[in-house]
């Protein structure tokens, strides 16, 4: 009985492998390519560490209460030491704890911004590229309008009218981020439209929706994934930029850009305050960029610089 089951499971596994042989080989090739390139490995390691730190968060630090409004005026603005690796800020909060706990906030912001941008931009891009016609033209003209100003400026304009704050900053960044995906997907979808497998799908009677989302979308997936990885880093920069000029996350939230903005007032003597949160941003963005570069080599080699 037991033997029968294991052999049944065995044949299932063999069949599964045979059916998906090409996919397995593709995964193997991708893994090989990522592991062969030291820079994308570094990127993978940084992003992995960032995710672990964001997940464990409060468990990793000595002073989890410092992420909120705790104050310890007896130890304000002390230099880095064994007790406070990155020193303390103007109300005595441990900067190391705040930087570590800031990862979760940063991850949430960049996930939401990039996620919303993909949800808005990708369907619009497929519509514009695959359906074409006057709706496509209209979508592209609207996209052009949003791409006509640098994203940061438009985001500032939006926050200026919505009012400062982390939620409004996220809304603003999402609103300026989607046009990039429309551009990317539209170009890709237009190229795919001419392919014979699309014609084949049309011949067997697939509906337009089915072709658009069942055939065109999966074939745009690689560049979308590469762009999403790059954009995770850029969204971190954008959110930190808004935090820095004072219209993003508000104190006492442990947002890296806002921390640098506060630490700036204590330069040059209390250099640690502004330095460490900035280093955290740099490392995170570098990780996402390197990972994106590596993914591009694997998934979308033709679009390399």
């Amino acid at each position, binding site marked *: 009985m037991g033997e029968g089951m294991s052999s049944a499971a065995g044949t299932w596994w063999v069949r599964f492998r045979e059916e998906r042989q090409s996919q397995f080989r593709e995964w193997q090739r991708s893994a090989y390519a990522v592991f062969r390139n030291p820079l994308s490995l570094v990127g993978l390691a940084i992003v992995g560490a960032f995710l672990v730190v964001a997940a464990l968060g409060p468990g990793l630090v000595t002073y989890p209460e410092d992420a909120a409004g705790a104050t310890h005026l007896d130890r304000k603005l002390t230099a880095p030491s064994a007790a406070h690796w990155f020193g303390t800020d103007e109300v005595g909060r441990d900067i190391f704890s705040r930087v570590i706990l800031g990862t979760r906030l940063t991850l949430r912001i960049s996930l939401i911004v990039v996620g919303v941008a993909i949800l808005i931009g990708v369907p619009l891009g497929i519509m514009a590229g695959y359906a074409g016609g006057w709706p496509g033209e209209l979508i592209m003209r609207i996209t052009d309008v949003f791409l006509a*100003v640098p994203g940061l400026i438009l985001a500032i304009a939006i926050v200026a009218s919505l009012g400062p704050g982390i939620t409004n900053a996220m809304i603003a960044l999402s609103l300026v981020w989607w046009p990039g995906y429309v551009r990317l997907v539209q170009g890709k979808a237009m190229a795919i439209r001419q392919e014979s497998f699309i014609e084949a799908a049309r011949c067997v009677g697939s509906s337009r929706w089915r072709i658009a989302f069942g055939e065109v979308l999966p074939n745009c997936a690689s560049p979308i994934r590469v762009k999403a990885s790059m954009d995770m880093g850029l969204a971190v920069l954008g959110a930190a930029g808004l935090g820095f000029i004072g219209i993003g996350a508000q104190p006492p939230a442990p947002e890296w850009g806002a921390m640098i903005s506060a630490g700036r007032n204590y*330069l040059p003597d209390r250099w640690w305050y502004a330095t460490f949160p900035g280093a955290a941003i*740099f490392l995170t963005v570098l990780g996402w960029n390197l990972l994106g570069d590596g993914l591009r080599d694997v998934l979308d080699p033709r679009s390399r610089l």
Partner: protein
Amino acid sequence: MKAFLIRRFGLLVITLFGLTLVVFAVSHVAPGDPARLAAGPDANQEQIELVRKEFGLDRPLPVQYLTYLGDLLRGDFGRSIRTRHEVGQDIRDFLPATLELVFFAMLLAVVLGITFGILAAVYRDTWGDHVLRLISIGGVAVPMFWLALMLQLLFALWLNLVPSGGRIALTMSPPTRLTGFFLVDSLLSWNWPAFRSALAHLLLPALVLSAPSLAAVTRMMRADMLDTISREFVVNARACGLPERLIVAKYVLKNALIPTLTLIGLRYGWMLGGTVLVETVFDWPGIGQYAVQSSVSSDFLPVMAVTLVIGLNFALANLLVDMLYGVLDPRVRQT
């Protein structure tokens, strides 16, 4: 080429019109009440209504938009709720400082980026190439305002090599205003001390603003050079016995410049956006700092104006890039 440029110009006008609509919509669907903000925290309902009337905020939205558009066409951007200054005049005062910063940063990014890119491609896989690649990977990831603070800390506050902020020494009066660019104005009026001071103040902000673009241009230029160097016409030129220097300078460079030119056009817009951060750190009196100060107090007319001015600037730069294609590539000229 002419038809193409006319079409591009038409699109530019449509896009800018669309931008006014977006910016207007953004500032009028917001929950905050601008009249209440302008009247101040202690104002009573009556005073708020007075302010609302004064700024025309009581009229229907389409009317407000058409009025705004009509004013824009006359170069009138309205008045700041915060300072009650004419926004158009403020922009005229602050824009030259920003453009001087961006032009200088662009010059650094283009000249250094293209040079580094060529060197990295010609001496590929040497240690110099690897160092340049590492720097350019890092350059794209570094938060610009943080880099600004760190360099300010190092070069201005600790080493005292350059001033830490502003456009010109406080003890010095700015050169007579002709173009609004301090470097140009001080040269035109033969004012050497002012020129030296303006240049010293400009160096650090421009370097920071150019850093990510410099990195991007270097990477792009290197890749395009390598791509072009392996083409058949280069092999042919070598076979004909042309000196390597001539091949690189005359044939490879011109072909490799075309994609880089597109990047430079895009980077110009990106730099205009970056001024917001760099000007804030270096206390540079340009439209970026103006936009930041206005946005913090929800004063949206200046922010709208800065957005539109930057949009117009960016659009014109892209038009210029399109024209330059024709200069570099004869195939574009013919179509």
